[in-house]
C-alpha cells in the first residue's frame, strides 16, 4: 500500500492546482465529430457488406425463415460436416444432416480439432465493417470463436448501426461481459507490409446477413 499512496501523492503534486471541478471539465470536452451517418438502414447494410468484401469475408443473404437452409448451403460449399455452437444458439439456425456440438466447457484441444464454429453477434458497425461479439451463453465464451480456423457468423440487418460512436454506446450497456470486435479475418502486415490473411484467429470468416 506504501507504493500506492506514494504514487498517488506524487501524481497530485505533479498536477498542482486544477481549475474547474472534474465533472464540468469533462463536460467541456468538445466532441464535434459525427455521431451518426446521414444514411438510412438499407444504405447502412450496403456499406457494411461493402466493408466485409473489402476484408475478403464472404457474405450470404437470407430471410429470417431461411437461416438454417443458408447455414446448410454455406457448410456444404465449405465441405464441413460438424461445427461447434454456443450453449444457447437458437435451435432453428441449425439444419439437420449436420452435426452441431454445444460448447459446455470443451477442452481447448477439442475446440482446436473442430471444423469451425457457428455464432450470432450482438451488433455490427457499418462504417468499419465490424462484428461485435458479447461473450455469453448466446455468443459463446471467447475461446470458442478464437481457436477454430473457421467462423460462420449470423448478423441481422437490424443489428447494424452506422458508426463507431453508435456502436460504442450500445457496447457500454453490455455490463461485464467480455467483448470482442472483429473487422475481417485475422491479418498481419508485419512482413514487408504485405497483408496476410489469417494468423492466429479464424482464417476464414463467412457472414450470413439476415433481412
Amino acid at each position: 500500500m506504501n507504493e500506492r499512496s506514494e504514487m498517488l501523492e506524487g501524481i497530485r503534486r505533479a498536477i498542482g492546482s486544477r481549475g474547474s471541478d472534474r465533472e464540468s471539465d469533462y463536460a467541456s470536452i468538445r466532441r464535434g465529430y459525427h455521431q451518426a451517418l446521414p444514411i438510412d438502414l438499407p444504405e447502412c447494410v450496403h456499406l457494411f457488406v461493402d466493408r466485409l468484401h473489402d476484408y475478403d469475408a464472404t457474405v450470404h443473404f437470407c430471410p429470417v425463415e431461411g437461416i438454417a437452409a443458408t447455414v446448410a448451403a454455406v457448410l456444404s460449399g465449405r465441405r464441413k460436416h460438424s461445427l461447434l455452437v454456443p450453449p444457447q444458439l437458437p435451435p432453428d439456425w441449425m439444419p439437420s444432416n449436420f452435426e452441431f456440438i454445444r460448447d459446455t466447457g470443451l477442452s481447448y484441444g477439442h475446440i482446436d480439432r473442430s471444423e469451425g464454429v457457428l455464432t450470432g453477434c450482438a451488433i455490427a458497425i457499418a462504417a468499419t465493417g465490424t462484428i461485435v461479439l458479447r461473450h455469453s451463453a448466446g455468443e459463446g465464451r471467447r475461446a470458442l470463436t478464437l481457436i477454430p480456423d473457421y467462423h460462420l457468423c449470423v448478423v441481422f440487418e437490424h443489428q447494424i448501426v452506422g458508426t463507431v460512436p453508435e456502436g460504442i454506446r450500445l457496447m457500454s450497456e453490455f455490463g461485464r461481459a467480455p467483448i470482442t470486435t472483429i473487422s475481417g479475418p485475422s491479418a498481419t502486415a508485419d512482413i514487408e507490409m504485405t497483408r496476410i490473411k489469417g494468423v492466429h484467429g479464424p482464417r476464414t470468416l463467412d457472414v450470413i446477413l439476415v433481412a
Partner: protein
Amino acid sequence: MSIRVGDAAEAPSFPRAARALLGNTQLRQNVRRATEVIRNRRARVVGELSDWEQLRQAGHEIKQHTLQYLDFYLEQFEEACTRAGGQVHWARDADEANAIILSILGARQAREVIKVKTMTSDEIGLNHALEAAGITPYETDLADLIVQLGDDRPSHIVVPALHRNRMEVRDIFLRKMHLRELGDKPEDLTNAARAYLREKFLRVGVAISGANFAVAETGSVCVVESEGNGRMCVSLPEVLITLVGIEKVIPRFEDLEVFLQTLPRSATGERMNPYNSIWTGIVPGDGPQEFHVVLLDNGRTKVLADTESRETLDCIRCGACLNACPVYRQTGGHAYGSMYSGPIGAILTPQLQSLEHSESLPYASSLCGACYEVCPVKINIPEILLHLRAKVTAAGDAPFEERVGMEAAAFVFEDPDMLALAQKLSRIAQKPFERDGVIRHLPGMLSGWTAFRDLTPIPKQSFREWWNERESQRGDQ
C-alpha cells in the same frame, strides 16, 4: 528509484548511432519502403473522414482532462477493476514492476509465459528479469517474435520488425524454429509462426499483456491488435497479468469511440484493426480466473509535472509520427536507443529517464512539424523538442549542448538530401514555435541553420507541398 527505459541509458548518442546506421543500405531501404506503404494507407483512410480534425481535438482534450485528474481516475479504475475480481498493483519504477510480476509468477511456479506486444514491458526490461529468474517469455506478436528470435531490437513502435525483409525473416525462422525447409513468401512465414505459437497458446498458463486503454468508470481494459495473438493471450490462460502505464487510463467507456476511430487509421491505415478485446475483471467460465493489473509510473509523474511537455503523455502509440518523420525514415528506429523511436521517442525517453542519459535525443529532429500534423492526439512534438533542448542548455551543460547540436547537424549535413531539407526548413520550421506572435529563441541545431538562411531562398510552397512534390519527383525517377 531506478527509472529505466529499456537500456537507453547505455545506448550511444543519437548522432553516433545514426551515422552507423546510415551505412546500412538494406535497412534504410526496408524502412523507407515500409513507412511509405503505411503513410499512403493512413492518408487514404484519414482522408475519408470529414470529421478527422474534430476527432483529433476530442482525443487531445480527453487525454488532457484525464491527466488533470489522473489520481482520481486511477483510483476509480482500481475500484472498478477490483470490484470485478481483478487485483491492482502499483509500481513506482521498473524494478518494482518486475518484482510484482515475478512474485505472481513465483506463486504459480510458472516456468513459461506468453506475451502480447507490450512496449511497456520492454521499457522495464521484463524479459531480462524473467530470464534471470529462469522463466521463458514467448513473444507472440509476429514482429516481436521476429525480433526476439533474431536477438534483435524493435525498430518501430507498431511494426517492430519493419527493418527486416522476408529473406532475413526466413533465415531467422529456419534457424530458431528448427525447421528443415521454409518458403520465403510472407504466407509461408506467417504459417510457420502460427504453427510455432499455437501449441504455446493452448498450453502455457500465464500471459502478460499491455493495454491500449484502461477505462476508469468500468475497470475495463482494451487491447487493440490484428493477428489474434492478443485475443489468445488475454482469453486462454488461467492467469493474466496486464502491465499498464498510468497514462493509459481514460475516463469513460464512451471515450473509446474517439480512440477506436483514430488509432487504427493512424497506426496501420485500417478503418478498424481486425480485433479489439475488451474485458472487465474476471468472468466465471470464460478466460483467466486470476487477473492482475500492474499500474506503472517509471518517470511518468515527472512528465506530468512539467506543464510545457505534459501532453507527451497523451500518446496512444500509433506510430504515425515515425512514418512521417524525415529523420526516422533515414535512420530507422535503432538509433533512438530504446523501443520508443521516432519523434515520440525523441521526446518521451529523455523525459522518463534523466535527461543526461539521452540528451542528444531532442536533437534527433529537423523540426519540420510533420509529426505534429499527423498526430491523432495533437501532441505538439516540435514545441516539446525545443522545450527539452532549452532544458539541456539550462542544465548548464552548454558546451555539450553545442557539441551534440553540431554533431547532429553534421550528420544531417553529410547527407545531401538532408542538407537540402534543412536549408529549406530553416524559416518554415519556426512556425510551430510562435507564441503570442513572438518567435522564441531557437536553440541548438536550428540556430546553426540560420547561417544557411541566406544561401537559398525559402520556397513559397508550404513545407508539405514541397515535400510531397519532392517525393513524387523521386517516385518518377
